[in-house]
């Protein structure tokens, strides 16, 4: 098992390297750099710009180095010192800005993942056992709808519904009266009252896909001889289904973390922008629009890392569940 985990960790290194290249590419992509646009706006507003000072700044930020040197400086800063560079817009180190936001993104992903499982596993099992029943068709219909409605449209619709019919303040994670308040039961309830919209919005597509997978897998398992045997020896029906075929059919549900997680993180980004949640999404969009590229690149890199860690966890869980993977 430990050998498997080590092998898996080693496999992650080239992927991480590739991701850092993509993030760095995005940092470098916009024409010009922040310094140039700063100088432009300063001269426009009539301020004097000292050429010596510009040269100094350029040297400090390494804008004149060849591209691979810049990449090397950037990546070693992150790996050795946790230094993600400088946010020009906020005039603070990027590392001071991102962790809160990434934490919110992480907790929202976990909440959504739990929601996806909590909804899709029972429905998936039900749909497979009662195939072609009316409820199965209803679930399938909603599943297709959930897949077809883009996150942000769903978010807008739910916002509208909750504003119009529930009279609830929408957007953000807390009502105005709780925003600055210390944590209390009231605040927690308020949080839950706000959290359901983003969780449903983010989780719906993943839930729909997982139900389809689970239904298909379980249907294949249900007709295998061992199920017939279990039933023939007189096991109660719920045990026949839950104890054997469901356990096997759950394998892909675990491995689903690997592909559901990037989707969740992706969904959180856009949903958070629409609902104005304090996750990485809105800050990333703002950073991109103002071309504060170190901040934006760091977010993109960290979101990639987040999904990679998710995949690692899903692989390890899978290996624990299924010895064939461990000893391959």
């Amino acid at each position, binding site marked *: 098992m430990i050998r498997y985990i080590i092998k898996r960790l080693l496999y992650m290194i*080239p992927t991480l390297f590739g*991701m850092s290249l993509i993030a760095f590419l*995005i940092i470098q992509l916009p024409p010009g750099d922040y310094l140039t646009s700063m100088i432009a706006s300063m001269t426009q507003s009539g301020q004097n710009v000292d050429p010596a000072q510009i040269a100094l700044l350029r040297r400090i930020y390494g804008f004149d180095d060849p591209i691979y040197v810049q990449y090397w400086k950037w990546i070693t800063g992150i790996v050795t010192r946790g230094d993600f560079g400088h946010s020009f817009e906020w005039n603070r180190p990027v590392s001071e800005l991102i962790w809160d936001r990434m934490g919110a993104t992480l907790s929202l992903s976990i909440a959504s993942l739990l929601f996806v499982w909590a909804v899709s596993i029972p429905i998936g099992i039900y749909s497979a056992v009662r195939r*072609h029943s009316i409820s199965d068709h209803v679930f399938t219909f909603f599943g297709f709808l959930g897949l077809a409605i883009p996150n942000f449209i769903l978010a807008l*619709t739910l916002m509208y519904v909750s504003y119009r019919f529930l009279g609830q303040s929408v957007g953000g994670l807390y009502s105005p009266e709780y925003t600055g308040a210390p944590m209390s039961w009231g605040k927690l309830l308020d949080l839950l009252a706000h959290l359901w919209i983003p969780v449903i919005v983010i989780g719906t597509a993943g839930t729909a896909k997982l139900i389809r997978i689970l239904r298909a897998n379980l249907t294949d398992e249900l007709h295998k001889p061992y199920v017939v045997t279990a039933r023939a020896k007189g096991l109660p029906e719920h045990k026949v289904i839950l104890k054997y075929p469901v356990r096997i059919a759950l394998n892909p549900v675990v491995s689903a973390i690997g592909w559901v997680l990037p989707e969740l993180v992706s969904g959180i980004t856009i949903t958070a922008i629409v609902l104005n949640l304090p996750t990485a999404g809105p800050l990333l969009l703002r950073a991109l629009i103002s071309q504060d590229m170190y901040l934006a690149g760091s977010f*993109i890199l960290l979101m990639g890392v987040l999904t990679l860690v998710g995949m690692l966890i899903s692989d390890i869980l899978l290996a624990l569940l299924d010895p064939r993977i461990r000893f391959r």
Partner: protein
Amino acid sequence: MAMNRTVHIQDETGPAVTPLKPEGGREEMAAAGQWKLIWHKFIRNKLALVSAAIIIVLYLVAAFAEFLAPGDPSASRPQYTYAPPQPIGFFVDGGDGESRFLPHVKGYAVEVDPESYRRTFVPDDEQIVPIGFFVEGAPYKFWGLFDMNMHLLGALDPTQPMYLLGTDRLGRDLLSRLIYGTRVSMSIGLIGVGMSLVLGIVLGSLSGYYGGWVDTAIQRLIEVVSAMPTIPLWLGLAAAIPLTWSPLQVYFIITLIVSLLGWTGLAREVRGRFFALKTEDFVTAARLDGSRERRLIFRHILPSLTSHILAVVTLAIPTMIIAETALSFLGIGLKPPVVSWGVLLQDAQNIRTVSSAPWLLVWPAGAVVVAVLSFNFFGDGLRDAADPYES
């Protein structure tokens, strides 16, 4: 599901009926080519057929947008901002108590809220705006070639208002904008898929055919790209588009960005099939006959993949449409004056607009959902029909 039902029917009726059938018909099917078999299976799937029809209609709308739209999508009338949709009526009171057939919409009356002084429009039963088919209206250049001013539907007097789906914040006709948006949104899906198809097939076949280190390298690349959460990556790439670019350049670069991330699934699919087909007898036979590698790939392996690829491609189009919509909605994709469904949804960004003018959310969102659903059902139907092992 529909497939399973048909399986069921065949199981029950198959043995009893088939011997009675005229022999000729069976032989015809037995010797039918791959495409004929697929077609036969496909047309039994009603849901997929309906979806195919909707997709065709959508592309026809895209092709004849200028003619179908009642007006110019960017012509604004400030006196009709946020005007609600008008219902169509067919009979008017002739004055002598008898009703007379005259297709029309109701004009608008302005109501001013006594507290907020905000103007709202309500349909006014007194004002009748007669409408008709093939009316003359705003001039346009059809396909950029012919000068025309004929519109399928419109007010007989072009100066009078006809807003079947309401207007936006500048008093522009939502129906016309939606129709022009169809052109941009649907074509981005098609062109984007074309680009990722090329990437996916080339890299997927290389990977699947050669195996070894080529395979490993390409698989790593796919892994990296597909592990990145797509929306942040799209955002990052789209934000780098210079503001000075022309709308056409932005359109193509957005399509490129959208397809840049869409090819991974396709490449995986192609690679998997290649691995399966590589060891098939007919490939071995062709190799023993002395076919070179290029001939093996393009003449023998790829043709047996086409039906499957077609299905996967259809299923990839909706993702592209959603991607464009999301980017434009956030304001870093396509920008006005270009009209796409995403650009239209940008107007419905805040809750205040949505609650006072819900039609700005409902119609563009509805268009996106209908298009995406149709492509999904159509693709599913194609995939089932193209699978030779599922009868």
